[in-house]
């Protein structure tokens, strides 16, 4: 067979599988309109079918709870609830009585009504709830008809399941001894089946379109759920390529999994903290899944964006409290509002500036607009009672700004106390170092801040005077340039002399070339995107802090970025070989 194009889809749960296709038949029974002689008898049939569906769902729920955890099995609690939903169940009963139709027809019509409304919703999460109604009504229907509910649980050889869509109960019942992955025509990353695939840790590609339906049963399939591709009947070369890829992927995954709940320690026993950056509560799951030891940067801008008015204090309080509670005592560094620059809020009606990155952004804006800033500070203070909160102010250039922010915070704390609100006795408060002036004069801040967090994206932009949105000057984004490394060193040394800690929350903290140098320079906390945490932990475990202290000193004296990068790579090779 000639080489065929792979089928593109959404990588919903990562992994690579090579196996035969098992094609799941779509079940779609549409009852005919038929009148029933005895509505009471139809209602009794309906009740019996619902009772059987309930017993079945209870069993699936318990089984799923044992296999994938109670939280994921909640889906089936939702299904059980649907069996009691007054509008659904009473709707069927009413139709039975008023129209004198069969239970099958009344069920189909009523369920279909809800399915159609849900499918037409704008919100993807709600559209997917149509699947739940289909799953549950299909289950009742099969009991009404006395035919077994189609199930994939009878599969008995290794395969990739190919289906139009998988219901939550289909997915939960997959026998993982045989089913190695699945691909579906419809669905998204947030479909139930995608979420379940991730909890079951079974590779899945969803939303791959109609091409999926052409896959024959028994065809050899490569399911590349890393890139989001499906190869059908691959050439021998392609097969060999993927066998190697799969082996490497599986080995890497196994290694990283071992590191998940471990502390981050260098080869010579130096401990650092690996944290994650988040932009909203939606990112929390990834933070916990990847074994981050803290949240090093919670950007609060999302609370203010994509809406038409300011969020209230209460709304913010609930969000911060939620994040702190989910982190269960682990540190959470929340950065106060950082708008301006490339982040605009139309409803504030801020004037256009000719140099927004050098204008009234972040703390500069917050200090002038106390009506915006004070409610955020109050929300943070109130939330501090629910976990390990640290507050961070962005874009500090001079000491007066830091002192002004701190004063507002202290004032709000006193007010809250007077109101009888609960506030943590001590909240670490620090500043972001992203303006060269603050880096150079870090010692003048070090006395009275609790920590620094270096924001490298802006620090590099301002040090190089290169707009990070402008592609023609993007070559100046050089995190390992000696100028940047020297600033980082100045900040760490200033903090250490005052007994304070330093984190980093820009892209650089998760960069594998920068990590050895940062470890050598003595950085205490590295905050990065959640997906980088485990690879960084593995890398740090292979590095010697003492050796990199000397290497970093050498790098600081080099002439440029390229030389530093080359040097780091050389050192890493000489150790690993």
């Amino acid at each position, binding site marked *: 067979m000639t080489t065929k194009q792979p089928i593109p889809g959404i990588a919903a749960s990562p992994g690579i599988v090579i196996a035969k296709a098992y094609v799941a038949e779509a079940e779609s029974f549409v009852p005919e309109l038929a009148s029933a002689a005895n509505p009471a008898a139809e209602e009794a049939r309906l009740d019996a079918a619902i009772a059987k569906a309930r017993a079945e769902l209870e069993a699936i729920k318990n089984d799923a709870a044992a296999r994938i955890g109670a939280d994921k099995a909640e889906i089936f609690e*939702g299904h059980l609830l649907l069996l009691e939903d*007054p509008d*659904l169940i009473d709707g069927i009963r009413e139709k039975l009585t008023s129209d004198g139709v069969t239970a099958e027809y009344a069920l189909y019509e009523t369920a279909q009504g809800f399915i159609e409304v849900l499918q037409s919703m704008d*919100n993807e*999460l709600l559209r997917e709830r149509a699947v739940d109604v289909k799953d549950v009504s299909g289950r009742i229907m099969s009991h009404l008809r006395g035919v077994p509910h189609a199930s994939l649980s009878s599969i008995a050889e290794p395969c990739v399941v190919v289906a139009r869509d998988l219901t939550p109960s289909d997915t939960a019942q997959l026998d993982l001894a045989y089913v190695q992955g699945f691909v579906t025509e419809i669905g998204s990353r947030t479909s139930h089946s995608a979420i379940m695939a991730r909890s079951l840790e079974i590779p899945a590609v969803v939303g791959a379109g109609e091409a999926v339906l052409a896959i024959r049963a028994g065809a050899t399939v490569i399911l590349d759920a890393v890139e989001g591709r499906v190869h059908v009947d691959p050439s021998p070369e392609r097969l060999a390529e993927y066998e190697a890829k799969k082996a490497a992927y599986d080995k890497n995954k196994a290694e990283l999994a071992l590191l998940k709940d471990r502390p981050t320690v260098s080869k010579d026993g130096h401990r650092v903290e690996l944290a994650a950056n988040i932009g909203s*509560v939606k990112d929390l799951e990834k933070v916990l899944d990847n074994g981050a030891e803290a949240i090093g940067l919670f950007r609060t801008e999302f609370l203010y964006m994509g*809406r038409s008015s300011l969020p209230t204090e*209460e709304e913010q309080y609930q*969000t911060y409290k*939620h994040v702190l509670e989910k982190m269960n005592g682990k540190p959470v560094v929340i950065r106060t509002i950082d708008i301006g620059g490339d982040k605009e809020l139309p409803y504030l009606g801020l004037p256009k500036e000719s140099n927004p990155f050098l204008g009234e952004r972040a703390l500069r804006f917050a200090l002038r607009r106390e009506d915006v800033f004070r409610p955020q500070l109050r929300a943070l203070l109130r939330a501090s009672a629910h976990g390990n909160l640290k507050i961070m102010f962005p874009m500090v250039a001079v000491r007066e700004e830091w002192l002004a922010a701190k004063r507002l915070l202290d004032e709000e704390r006193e007010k809250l106390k007077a109101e009888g609100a609960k506030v943590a006795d001590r909240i670490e408060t620090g500043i972001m170092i992203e303006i060269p002036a603050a880096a150079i004069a870090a010692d003048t801040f070090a006395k009275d801040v609790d920590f620094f967090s270096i924001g490298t994206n802006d620090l590099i932009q301002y040090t190089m005077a290169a707009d990070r949105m402008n592609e023609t000057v993007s070559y100046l984004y050089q995190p390992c340039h000696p100028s940047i490394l020297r600033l980082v060193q100045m900040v760490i040394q200033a903090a250490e002399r005052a007994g304070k800690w330093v984190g980093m929350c820009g892209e650089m903290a998760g960069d594998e070339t920068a990590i050895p140098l940062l470890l050598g320079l003595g950085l205490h906390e590295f905050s990065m995107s959640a997906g980088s945490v485990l690879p960084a932990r593995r890398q740090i475990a292979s590095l010697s802090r003492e050796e990199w202290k000397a290497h970093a000193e050498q790098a600081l004296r080099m002439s440029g970025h390229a030389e530093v990068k080359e040097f780091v790579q050389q050192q890493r090779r000489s150790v690993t070989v």
Partner: protein
Amino acid sequence: MISQTFTVANPQGFHVRPTKTFVEKASAFPCKINVINKGKKVNGKSSLSMLTLGIAQGDEVTLEIDGEQEQEAMEALGPLFGQIHE
């Protein structure tokens, strides 16, 4: 009958979990509970109907409660709209 309007705080709107919490609480009350969003009114004891309202963050949702224990029901249910759920 009493009615009151609330702003929805949850970033993902009033989707499955908050709806479930709401419906469970609502079902424990004897009074009639209606939820209104963007002009559409549904039974607050049906999660399915609640979902069809497509309640998003920032939406102004009105609770209309009528009958026995209506005040208690309002106090128990209203605040759910202002909370962050998973």
